[in-house]
């Protein structure tokens, strides 16, 4: 095929246009010069000879134009001719065009959306100056992104590879800007945060390292642009105003620029507060605790320093820390990760999931191409008469192929355009979507030039891909045969390219259907699995007494009053209070030592346990079963011996058995604590976690001001919520709190599996749709090819069954073959899924049956119309036709 060659000359004509034009001019002028020389020799004066030579040459400009066209091989004219003809042909068969365009629109749209996710979560760095050199520092074998503040100071001051290292963590605080106190989301950031990242204020100024003069010395707030717009109506006078943060006066220093949404992609804060004021913001200060690891560190590498060199440098800092603080910083090691997704903590699963999605989307596009390839092949066969006629009239095969390819690319570009429009709408919506209403979690996935580029590329490539499927068919077409004999029955070949394409496509669709069914099943199961608590019929109220100005002994006193007051609500069966709600995206882990351990180094720890502070009655209110021993009581206070209730996993890990745990002692946080009760295991961080050891301590012995009130009631939730609000407001009108059902709070824990299931479901649906159109195309093609044969069979007395078998047998065989292959592949692939969707197991008879049923139904659905056409074949009409 000469198509690429002419394309090449077309391109080079453009690229070297001036050079070629210059050469052409010179050649033409050289001709006129030679002619003038001859004329001069014949006796004409030079000027006259040149004039004559020019006249004899003819229309100079016209010939130059013609030469140009010859050079580019008439590329543009032929191209437009092809486009016009292609559009005419496509308009003539609107059904075919619509199916093709829609198929591609879905496939390319899905790819654009997934690529956009990939682009904004993984490819595109944070929108910060020199984001390429920005890294997050992680620690230990499990790449924990959490560091302690004292370690941060050492890392900041002792490293030689970073321009600056900044520290931050996210938190929630009560902010009173003059009206009602409401809770807001913030970054607690080191003083060098803005300077280290290289951000300039939009209004006012930022806080700096020089503002830090010890604990609570910098009562300053920097507002985010969005919060300033929504809560201060964009009033420039807001800068300099004093607001109440957890009842402490803070001064608004400035406003961050609109594009700066902090250093985490998922979390856009309302404002920033200096880390030295942690005590006022969070109610307690960890600034002096080397083992309280709760801040995240990012920093810009110095120019010319590679990540490997930086890691080596950090290694020497780690060695220093281990030597100086063997108790807390034993065996430390640091590594670097890309920032934006809390390092590798979110980054790794997100990367894995989005990459898997991208692969699936690619498969969808491949299936769509296979689908359209066979559609185009079928069409080329239907158009064999037209093609034969054109060949007979002297058109070259190359010319016809070029025209068919142009047609294919036209279709794919139209599909791409439609798909892109759809995906842009979806992405706009995703960018403002807040999956968890109570948290400022939201991702900007607006498409950029890269996304449009990829969509265009995919459209062109897929157009060429399915456009070349009918090539061989055209090349082998014999015009005389076709024009003479009508349809060309290609007998003999048992397996065609179309068959292979269809099998591949069905297999891909079966993979997608399997994957999405596995995910849906997994989600359904995890919704009904044992959390270790009963979210049904339980209401929650989140309160932070710290935000309302309570401190010291007034905190537990108020907590007890709240519990007591809520117990009086009619219908209430139990009320409890817990500082870290299980599956509430917040947790507190602490290392635990056996009673016999004396050297309390991290490496000697018996377990790392989830730590919760609760009131008596929490287990009852949460629906957690007490297996042995006693519940905690209000008498387990500061003056009583330290006690705790533990779960089974804790008993197993620390004591070896449940029986040994009862009455036994363990050590944590420099306290010796006795186990007085045993409760069932539960889920604390995520649904997919392995059993975690957990410790429940009486809130009077392990105080906490930020808590969740759990109210179990047998009344209508709405009514209970209203009573709870009244009760709490009566106790303290200035207390910020939110009331909701525990079930809706769980949405956040289930968000990842929900999102995964939803996207897989959509892709599975797309796959199913493609399978239907693919099988439909194949079946109707095979029926229309054999309609005459079927008519004869009917005329000779064939039964309906036999006709159907003849018409659709091969299509259904291919379907069965492809589905089996896809099912097996899908089962292999779903192992990957189980890391994201809890309890997603491929070896589930329901899933297997579901996939088989789905594929069977799809096959039946797709084959229905062609089958009824085959049965209605009227031998008389068919035989008369030819």
């Amino acid at each position, binding site marked *: 095929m000469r198509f690429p060659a002419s394309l090449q000359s077309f391109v080079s004509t453009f690229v070297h246009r001036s050079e070629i034009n210059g050469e052409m001019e*010179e*050649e033409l002028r050289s001709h006129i010069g030679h002619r003038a020389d001859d004329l001069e020799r014949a006796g004409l004066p030079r000027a006259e000879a040149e004039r004559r030579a020019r006249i004899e040459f003819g229309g*100079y400009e016209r*010939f130059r134009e013609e030469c140009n066209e010859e050079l580019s091989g008439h590329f543009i004219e032929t191209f437009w001719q092809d486009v016009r003809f292609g559009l005419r042909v496509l308009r003539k068969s609107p059904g075919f065009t619509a199916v093709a365009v829609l198929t591609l629109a879905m496939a390319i749209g899905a790819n654009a959306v997934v690529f956009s996710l990939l682009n904004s979560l993984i490819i595109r760095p944070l929108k910060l100056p020199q984001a390429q050199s920005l890294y997050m520092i992680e620690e230990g074998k499990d790449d924990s992104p959490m560091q302690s503040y004292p370690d941060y100071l050492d890392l900041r001051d002792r490293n030689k590879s970073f321009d600056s290292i900044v520290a931050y963590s996210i938190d929630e605080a009560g902010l009173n800007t003059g009206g009602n106190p409401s809770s807001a989301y913030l970054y607690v950031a080191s003083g060098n945060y803005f300077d280290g990242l290289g951000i300039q204020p939009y209004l006012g100024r930022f806080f700096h390292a020089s503002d830090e003069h010890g604990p609570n010395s910098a009562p300053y707030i920097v507002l985010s642009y969005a919060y300033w717009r929504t809560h201060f109506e964009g009033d420039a006078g807001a800068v300099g105003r004093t607001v109440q943060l957890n009842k402490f006066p803070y001064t608004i220093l400035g406003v961050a620029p609109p594009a700066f949404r902090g250093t985490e992609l998922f979390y856009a804060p309302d404002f920033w507060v200096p880390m030295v004021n942690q005590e006022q913001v969070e109610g307690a200060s960890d600034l002096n605790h080397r083992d309280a690891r709760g801040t995240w560190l990012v920093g810009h590498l110095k120019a010319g320093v590679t990540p490997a060199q930086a890691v080596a440098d950090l290694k020497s800092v780690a060695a220093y820390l281990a030597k100086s603080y063997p108790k807390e910083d034993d065996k430390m090691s640091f590594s670097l990760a890309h920032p934006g997704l809390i390092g590798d903590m979110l980054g790794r699963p997100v990367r894995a999931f989005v990459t898997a999605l991208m692969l699936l989307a690619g498969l969808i596009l491949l299936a769509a191409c296979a689908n359209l390839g066979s559609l185009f092949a079928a069409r080329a066969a239907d158009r064999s008469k037209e093609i034969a006629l054109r060949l007979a009239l002297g058109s070259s095969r190359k010319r016809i192929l070029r025209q068919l390819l142009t047609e294919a690319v036209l279709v794919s570009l139209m599909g791409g355009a439609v798909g892109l429009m759809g995906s842009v709408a979806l992405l706009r919506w995703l960018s403002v979507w807040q999956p968890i209403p109570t948290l400022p979690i939201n991702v900007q996935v607006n498409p950029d030039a890269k996304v449009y580029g990829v969509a265009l590329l995919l459209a062109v490539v897929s157009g060429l891909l399915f456009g070349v499927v009918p090539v061989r068919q055209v090349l082998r077409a014999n015009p005389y045969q076709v024009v003479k004999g009508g349809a060309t029955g290609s007998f003999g070949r048992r397996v065609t390219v179309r068959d292979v394409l269809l099998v591949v496509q069905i297999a891909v669709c079966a993979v997608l259907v399997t994957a999405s069914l596995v995910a849906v099943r997994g989600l359904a199961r995890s919704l009904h699995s044992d959390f270790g608590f009963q979210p049904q019929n339980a209401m929650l109220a989140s309160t932070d007494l710290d935000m309302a100005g309570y401190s010291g002994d007034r905190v537990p006193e108020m907590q007890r009053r709240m519990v007591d007051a809520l117990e009086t609500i009619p219908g209430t069966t139990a009320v409890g209070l817990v500082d870290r709600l299980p599956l509430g995206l917040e947790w507190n882990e602490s290392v635990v030592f056996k009673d016999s351990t004396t050297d309390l180094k991290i490496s000697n720890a018996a377990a790392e346990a989830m730590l919760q502070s609760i009131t008596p009655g929490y287990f009852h209110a949460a629906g957690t079963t007490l297996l042995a021993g006693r519940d905690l009581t209000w008498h387990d206070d500061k003056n009583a011996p330290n006690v705790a209730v533990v779960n089974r996993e804790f008993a197993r890990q620390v004591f070896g058995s449940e029986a040994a745990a009862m009455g036994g002692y363990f050590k944590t946080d420099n306290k010796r604590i006795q186990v007085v009760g045993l409760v069932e295991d539960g889920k604390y961080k995520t649904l997919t976690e392995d059993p975690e050891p957990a410790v429940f301590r009486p809130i009077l012995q392990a105080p906490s001001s930020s808590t969740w009130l759990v109210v179990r009631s047998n009344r209508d939730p709405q009514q209970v919520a209203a009573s709870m609000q009244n009760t709490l407001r009566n106790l303290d009108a200035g207390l910020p709190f939110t009331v909701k059902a525990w079930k809706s709070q769980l949405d956040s824990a289930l968000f990842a599996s929900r999102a995964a299931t939803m996207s897989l479901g959509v892709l599975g649906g797309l796959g199913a749709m493609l399978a239907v159109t693919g099988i439909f195309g194949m079946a109707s093609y095979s029926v229309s090819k054999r309609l005459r044969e079927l008519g004869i069979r009917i005329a000779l007395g064939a039964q309906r069954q036999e006709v159907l078998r003849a018409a659709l047998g091969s299509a259904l065989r291919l379907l069965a073959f492809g589905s089996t292959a896809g099912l097996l592949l899908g089962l292999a692939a779903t192992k990957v899924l189980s890391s994201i969707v809890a309890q997603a197991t491929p070896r589930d008879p329901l899933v297997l049956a579901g996939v088989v049923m789905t594929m069977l139904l799809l096959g039946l659905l797709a084959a229905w119309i062609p089958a009824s056409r085959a049965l209605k074949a009227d031998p008389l009409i068919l035989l008369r036709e030819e």
Partner: protein
Amino acid sequence: MTAQAQLLPGTLDLLILRAVSLGPLHGYGILLRIGQISGNALLIEQGALYPGLFRLARQGLLKTNWGTSENNRRAKYYELTTAGRKRLREETEDWNRLAAAIASALAVQPEEI
């Protein structure tokens, strides 16, 4: 100069190939050679030669290189490629068949039918 015949469409390419087959020539030289070998019986607009030359070069039938002419001018010389030689042979045969057929058709006398 005697009366000149108009060229049939498509025959200019054949003439160019034939002219060049006798040795490398520049554009003006090809024109002179065609005049010479056809006995100046054909009317060719001089500029019309060049689109044909570019077409044949693009199809890979002619190869080109710049040189200096006998008049001491820079000129682009054309030469037949192997593909060009093959094409010339084929087109010559086609032409001869066509010419013979037309000629014999025109030569037919009523009594010969």
